[in-house]
């Protein structure tokens, strides 16, 4: 008996998975097939389901509205759907749009543990990455990293919203997590139709994603001490491109300002009317965390 191929679509919330899914449904490759689409939503119940374009294919749509798909709580709902497909529907293919916070590495284990590996197999795991938010989420949310680790291919979506330089850095960051992964750029989920068949699934043993990647991390600085503007500029300069992001308020001697740094460049600096204490989050890359902390500490304390 032939196994039913599963096309797994992952990516954090807002990355553009549903838009990508809708695009996939317009492809001849899927249009011709008896298709089942499974959507797991977390925190956006009933939003993604209706957004899925139903006119393009004769697919059957299942929604799991509880927790993160492949988290223990929803395993039974997912298994229920798979069993129904095995016994009644027998589709040609399945597309799963996983929840934005899904630990996608679990799906192989679930299929094998429940004795369904003779009936289903992962054909490919495509991770949609949000060009605008990926870097700031990476050190914060574990699943953002694990989705890339377990993917067979990454599609960077919303590429029109960042410049070439940012895209280059973003690709390097992705490759630092999954060195050999093929990366495609796109806008509005317009995934390359060739991609679907050109990649195959690479089963990875359950990797232990215990912490953010060692070379990417965030630190938070909170302080009530006034900071000299030049000292701040020097700190940014010293960290340079290793400062992937910085965002927050800084209490300068001239008043509090909202500042934003992307890839070492100050892109926003606005005076705010309220006098606030310093509070910002910085994401560093390929720089020793203690060193970055020391630079910011020096910035805070050097004039005091």
């Amino acid at each position, binding site marked *: 008996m032939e196994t039913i191929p599963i096309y797994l679509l992952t990516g954090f919330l807002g990355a553009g998975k549903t838009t990508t899914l809708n695009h996939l449904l317009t492809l001849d490759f899927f249009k011709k097939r008896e298709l089942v689409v499974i959507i797991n939503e977390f925190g956006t119940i009933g939003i993604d389901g209706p957004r899925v374009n139903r006119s393009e294919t004769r697919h059957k749509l299942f929604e799991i509205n509880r927790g993160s798909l492949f988290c*223990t709580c929803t395993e039974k709902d997912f298994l229920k759907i798979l069993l129904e497909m095995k016994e009644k529907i027998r589709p040609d293919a399945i597309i799963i749009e996983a929840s934005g916070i899904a630990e996608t590495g679990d799906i192989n284990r679930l299929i094998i543990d429940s004795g369904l590996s003779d009936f289903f197999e992962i054909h490919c795991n495509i991770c949609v990455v949000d060009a605008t938010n990926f870097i700031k989420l990476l050190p914060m949310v574990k699943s953002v990293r694990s989705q890339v680790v377990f993917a067979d291919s990454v599609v960077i979506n919303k590429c029109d919203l960042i410049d070439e330089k940012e895209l280059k850095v973003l690709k390097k960051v992705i490759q630092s997590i999954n060195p050999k992964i093929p990366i495609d750029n796109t806008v509005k989920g317009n995934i390359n139709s060739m991609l679907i068949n050109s990649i195959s699934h690479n089963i990875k043993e359950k990797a232990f994603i215990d912490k953010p990647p060692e070379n990417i991390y965030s630190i938070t600085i909170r302080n009530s001490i006034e900071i000299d503007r030049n000292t701040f500029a020097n700190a940014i300069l010293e960290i340079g491109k290793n400062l992937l992001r910085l965002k927050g308020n800084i209490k300068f001697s001239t008043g509090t300002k909202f500042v934003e740094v992307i890839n070492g460049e100050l892109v926003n600096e606005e005076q705010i009317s309220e006098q606030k204490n310093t509070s910002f989050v910085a994401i560093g890359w390929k720089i020793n965390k203690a060193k970055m902390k020391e630079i910011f500490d020096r910035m805070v304390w050097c004039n005091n």
Partner: protein
Amino acid sequence: MKISRQNRVLRATRCEKIDRTPWVPFIGCHAGALIGKTATEYLQNEDFMVKGIQTAIDKYNPDGIPITFDLQLEAETFGCELSWADDNPPAVASHPLIDGKNLSDLKIPLPEDGRIGIVMNTCRRIRKQNPDIALYGLITGPFTLALHLLGTKIFMDMFDAPDDVEKILDFCRQTGEAISKYYIDAGADIIAVVDPMTSQIGPEQFHEFVTPHAKKLFEYIRTSKKLSSFFVCGHAQQNIEEMCKCRPDNICVDENIPLDYVRDISLPMQVSFGGNIPLTSVLLLGSETDSQKSALSCMERSGKEGFILAPGCDLPYATPQKNLEAIGKMIDDVYQQDVVKAMTDEANVCDTLNMTEYGQSDRVIIDIITLDSEACAPCQYMVEAVKAITPEFQGVVEWREHKIKHQQSLVFMTSLMVKNVPTICIDGRITFVSRIPKRDEMIAAIQKRIIEKMRTKIQRRKATLIILRKRDDELFQKTRENVDLAIKELGSEVEVLIKDDDNSFYAYGLSPLQSPAVVMAKYNVKSARKVPDVNIIKEWIKGI
């Protein structure tokens, strides 16, 4: 040292010595299934909840039990819409802080807001009905509650607006303290802070955003002179140490985190731990034996001190009762635990013996399947009981012990389809299961078997002798006389048939010219008092 069930949980939570591992099934909407109500009906009705929890207590022999497992309780009071289901707890379907409300619009819930009153009244009634059981009051952890309020935007805001996230978390912490107080007033012993969404973040974010609030919350519970637990589910291995640093009395994890990993971190920090019988693969889809084995494996990995046996998380609505009953039965019974231990993974026992012809010899064979009669008292008494009566049958009865510690005995046990030990099988038939029969009862069972064997023997002796003859054959008379004499001398039950038509000769492959001919037909009783399967009959026919 026999202690009360409540005390057992409290002492284990405080890492103190106890007589045995406490068992706390995390019953949420599953209790609805126990009384034939949907999750929606169950979670909104105080009487149903009281009845459901009481049924669970009566059936599952727990040392402690949660009043409910509903992480939407607080969120509902803040205006989060709930999406209800028949076989799941409800899910939060809207998030007030992204739907236009401000944090200042939200008020700490009062004891009667939403379904809080129902839950607290349930707690009071269960407390009254069960003074000897540890009651858990489950509250939604600050991070998960913040996620209900703000949706997954919280992850972006941890970078974009960390101060706002802080404020929301602080509000959620205050909410947690209020609900804890309501539970404590209603008689709960342990407040469990359930924060599954923290599994999504790393230890640094945990330290930054969760630790300050969780620490205060646990301090509040401690000041209220009650114990606390910190529940997490999913891949939260990275945060175990940070969780312990928040100073709960206990932490609970699901199957995604190995218990020995948790133990090695938590116990040195004087934090007890609990978990993690797999919910889906074992409790929902597995058998009673799977459930017992898994529970035992959790206990063995964890050690006796500072451990509470529990499912990894909220039990699925449709969890088979028999699986939880099996654990409840085993938890008090050291002997049963030894049996489960000995019955190593059945998957390894793939060889089974063909037992179809077993027990057909002249002697009656008694097989006693034991753990080991030298080490296990019930096994010893059973073996002694059999041993004492066999001499009275003067060699007709033979007994053998099969210790399932040995692989070949386990194969034998599986082949006979024996599920419990000790068990007595007489000629391969399961006769006495887990009980030592009285002397007379045992003798009667053996005698019954001897009589059965005699009857079979008699049946086997029965035969038909056919004499084929031509009507005028002179040799027929002499043949007939010899046959009658032989039957008489042997005392056999042989029926004699005389056939004289030509077709009868042909039917046996003979010619009438070969008269007289003698044909013997021996009978073999193949089944009695049952309808044999067609395939079985075919096999008998092929045997001819």
